[in-house]
């Protein structure tokens, strides 16, 4: 099982990194999503992998248990990354509608001396 979890994290991370290096906003958003999946699985695995073990100590018998803290951390991380992805989609959509292109790169015009847009003028 360790092998499956580890390679899943690896594949998700590799895919995510490939996608966030793309030029356009949509693949980048997908890449960020993949990366956050990868990190969620990774966080989940930091408490060691245990199957069929309750996340609670048993004071009567020395039975195996799974670490509950990573599960709580993962829950927080999922909520945050979900919210962040929503914000990212909205910002990307705003940028796309304003600029009529979803390229991530700033065009040179944005750096040009005569471009005053976005300077609050």
């Amino acid at each position: 099982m360790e092998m499956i979890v580890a390679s899943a994290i690896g594949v998700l991370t590799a895919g995510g990194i490939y996608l966030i290096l793309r030029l356009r906003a949509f693949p980048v958003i997908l890449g960020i999503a993949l990366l956050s999946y990868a990190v969620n699985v990774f966080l989940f695995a930091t408490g060691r992998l245990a199957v069929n073990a309750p996340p609670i100590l048993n004071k009567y018998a020395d039975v195996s248990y799974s670490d509950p803290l990573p599960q709580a951390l993962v829950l927080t991380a999922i909520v945050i990354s979900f919210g962040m992805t929503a914000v990212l989609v909205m910002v990307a959509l705003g940028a796309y509608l304003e600029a009529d292109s979803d390229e991530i790169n700033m065009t040179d015009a944005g750096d040009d001396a005569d471009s005053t847009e976005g300077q609050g003028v």
Partner: protein
Amino acid sequence: MNHWIIAPVVLPALLAPVIAYVMRHDIKLARYASVAGTVLLAVISVGLLTIVADGQTHVYYLGDWPAPFGIVLVLDRLSAMMVLLTSILAMVVLWHAIATEWDNRGRHFHALFQFQLMGVCGAFLTGDAFNLFVFFEVLLIASYGLMIHGGGKVRLKAGLQYVVMNLAGSTLFLFALGALYASTGTLNLADLAVKVRELPLEEAGVLRVSAVLLLMVFAIKAALFPVQFWLPGTYANAPAPVAALFAIMTKVGAYAIIRFYTLVFGPDVAAVDGLIGSWVMPAAVITVAVGAIGVLGARRLMPMLSFAVVGSMGTLLLAVAAFTPEAIAAGLYYLLHSTFAAAASFLLADLVVTRRGSDALTAQPPIYQNGLFAAFFFVGAIGVTGMPPLSGFLGKLLVLDGVRDMPWMATAWAAILLASLVTIVGFARAGSVVFWKSTAMMDTEADASETPAPIGVNALVGVSASLAMLALLASFAGPVMGYLEQTSVQLFDVSGYVDAVLGQHGEDLK
């Protein structure tokens, strides 16, 4: 347990939703509330500063759960000072944003502003690594909103880059925390400090990975080379008051580096054994160079100031890289200075750029009251470049002195001194083009049909206040340095921190 410790987090957290939901249609009401909240925050942080004057580390246990099982907030000299710095900067920036009507160019400025303060104060106060991540996210999500405040094509594009960069950084942060938890089984900073020092060397591989990953995350925040490239685009395209507020955001990264790599991965930890300093030093030297070259090469005023911020972060982290109490005290002084210097320059640039209509560094017909702005720019440039009599000079001097005993002292001195020279040339060039060369074009403008209204006193208050802070820092450098020296002694007193947080319970755990 002193409940005031959590007030800098709770106050903005309660105020922001009220502003967003109740006062969203009434900008005047929102302004009053926001100003009142920020002033109250400043009062509270002065109170916190008096609490830490006893030299103790004060701990706030959320829900009264004993550490390390619950989340703790920790108030020591460093965090009290950073919260005070945040609240003073917030007052200055807020005043400027209101006086120049920036807050009315988009919606929800004040709510986002308060959420930003909540995140920053929380990051300074927390004593838990995962909680630090959460507060980073709070301050980031508010900063995304502030960054694209007012809209515009270029700003949204720059905002998108900023968001993507920071989301990637957050993912890296989670990976680092996961690795840290996997190897130590805790995320409480004090408990980590104990566990990391107990871990046998042969099991420290994962720990070392997490130490380096964390350094990368904080380096992104602190705009350290090679992950500094997001900063110029972001700051140059953000609304100027927001860029001034962001002066504290890079300091959050620097604070996290100082906190983590003295407390958890201190110089005495065998597992990382000087690894951090030897990575931060070259990165900081290159950052200093990048900042200076950027200042010289910038074609617009706002990117030039952004590169000046990059350079100042390099200088600050060069002092931190030494990881000695003297150097860190010097670095903290420079941190205070560079925050207000950056704020002053961005706020002034806002006034100038609004009147010129463009921030290009080319000669254009002079603006009304050219001399007044030129004088302000001159003082601001003195502050940013680190010339006497303002605090930048003392700050750089202290940093140079702080790294004097390091083996890489020659490199550091050469970098800082050469970069200062180049930065001075860059600022001199910008000032002469914007304010002097422009006067030659006076006649081409046949006659200004009507004289524009002179600038109101209100709009100048923000700039003047930041410059006054630089002057105050220089005048009271002695007492300030006294406080900072005690601060860095406290920083290196790891067992004091651990005992305060874990207390009696810590004894049991040991």
